[in-house]
């Protein structure tokens, strides 16, 4: 915090009030409601509810479908983060080396960041449709690809759809990270070491570590939440629920199944997962400021 600050009886509340009011009504109130839902069971006909302790949680956690979704979400997060980060880094290094036409190269790579997940999903849908899909027929000729029936093929489908857009987000951040590295360090390393490959792994990559950490977190949150639009427009959980993420499942159970208790419990489990991620993220971002 600042050393010099204002003292006031009233002004500070005025400035914070608008955001606080919106947050109280549209964030804290729903959170309280989520907890109420999670620890109660509602009468199927809507006549009142009773306290159920952890019943909803045990119900959710012992449901095989939930465990399938949990397993898929973990694989999903790992694959998306790994592939989109490494390809993004590769492209950023290339862009950083390009001297002529740098901005054209940058522009070519930056825009998929702005496309909505749902639009990506619908687009992917056409490439993987049985009748028109170019990628469908390509993979189908290779090994009989069929995501309608085969779990692993369905995995491949959603992995490609979900990573595509994320590559460009990673690219932007890596490029910014690369450009923040001081020229003198790079010049000095050129004198010491001829192999540009080794130079990258021993000098550049360690200097990019803060960016990498930050991006891992960003990608995890993306794979966790934002992919709902992708799943809902591609496989919708096909072949039979194997490609449902946790967020997608909570949405389906809550809105389609109207099982508020289960949806509430699922939300709280996810909040705990996000809590862990955010604590990590917050400490890291705070640390990065000192680092710079």
């Amino acid at each position, binding site marked *: *915090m600042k050393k010099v*600050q204002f003292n006031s009886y009233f002004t500070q509340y005025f400035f914070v009030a608008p*955001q606080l009011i*919106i947050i109280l009504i549209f964030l804290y109130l729903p959170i309280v*409601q989520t907890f109420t839902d999670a620890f109660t069971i509602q009468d199927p006909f809507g006549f009142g509810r009773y306290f159920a302790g952890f019943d909803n949680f045990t119900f959710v956690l012992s449901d095989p479908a939930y465990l399938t979704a949990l397993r898929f979400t973990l694989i999903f997060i790992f694959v998306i983060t790994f592939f989109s980060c490494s390809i993004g880094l590769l492209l950023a290094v290339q862009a950083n080396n390009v001297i002529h036409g740098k901005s054209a190269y940058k522009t070519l790579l*930056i825009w998929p960041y702005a496309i909505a*997940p749902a639009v990506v999903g619908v687009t992917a849908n056409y490439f993987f449709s049985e009748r028109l899909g170019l990628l469908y027929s390509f993979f189908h000729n290779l090994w009989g690809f069929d995501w309608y029936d085969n779990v692993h093929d369905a995995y491949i489908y959603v992995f490609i759809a979900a990573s595509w857009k994320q590559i460009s987000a990673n690219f932007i951040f890596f490029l910014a990270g690369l450009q923040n590295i001081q020229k003198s360090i790079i010049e000095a390393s050129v004198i010491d070491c001829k192999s540009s490959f080794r130079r990258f792994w021993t000098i550049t990559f360690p200097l990019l570590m803060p960016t990498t950490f930050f991006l891992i977190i960003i990608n995890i949150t993306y794979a966790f939440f934002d992919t709902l639009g992708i799943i809902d427009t591609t496989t919708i959980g096909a072949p039979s629920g194997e490609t449902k993420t946790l967020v997608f499942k909570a949405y389906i159970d809550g809105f389609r199944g109207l099982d508020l208790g289960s949806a*509430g419990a699922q939300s709280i489990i996810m909040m705990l997962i996000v809590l862990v991620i955010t604590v990590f993220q917050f400490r890291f971002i705070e640390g990065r400021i000192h680092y710079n």
Partner: protein
Amino acid sequence: MIVPIWIIFASSTHSNSVIQSDGMQWFMGDQFIKNYDQVLNKKGGFSEEVTATKLFLNSFIMAIGIATLTIITSLMAAYTIVYFRFKFAVPLFWAIFITLLVPLELRIMPSYQIVSDLHLINTYTGLILPLSASAIATFFFRQFYLSIPDELLEAAKLDGANSWKFFIDFLLPLSKTMMAAMFIFMFVYGYNQYLWPIIMTTSEKYWTVIMGMKIIFMANTVERFAYIILSMMPPVFIIIFLQRWFIQGLFQSK
């Protein structure tokens, strides 16, 4: 990266029968104007009364509303957090930042409940307000304020500036780049919302472009291709033309 989008675009300029018989196309056809005109101006939906142009208008209202509201409230809240000394400062800080834990996807059922209790279903207010309850911009503005040297405030105080004057005459002009970056970020975020409009709007008058993706809005395949291309234009153009401010604001705002 661009290949899939190009194929969709090229295919969207052919007639429907070409796509049905020969599959997707790599080169442009001659139906560009006809197909795009058809998509933008044909009435569709269940009641056959809304056009895609209307959906675009809704999306813009929603995205600009979310971006503007979030920036104004976040600028002000960050100001309180950084520049005022009072005993609730620390709890307040946490009360706001804990919200980063709970994206809309996690509180979607109860949010729907509250919005419907407030009679905001099928209103622009209902589309905008819950998505503006976000602390991300507050976080960025806070970081930005913290990077402004203390001497600025000292000097301003010597000149007799009070907290209002300092905010309006000093901080706001300094925050311009950051505000632009946040506006781009929040606009794209708001425009790209998918789940909330689906849940929130039962009337076609409030449908947005992105949710129209799922609900079959166009009858034939080429028109759906054209719709996909049109729907990604606004955020993509904003990013391409304003990328300099975006990147500057997020990475070099010191």
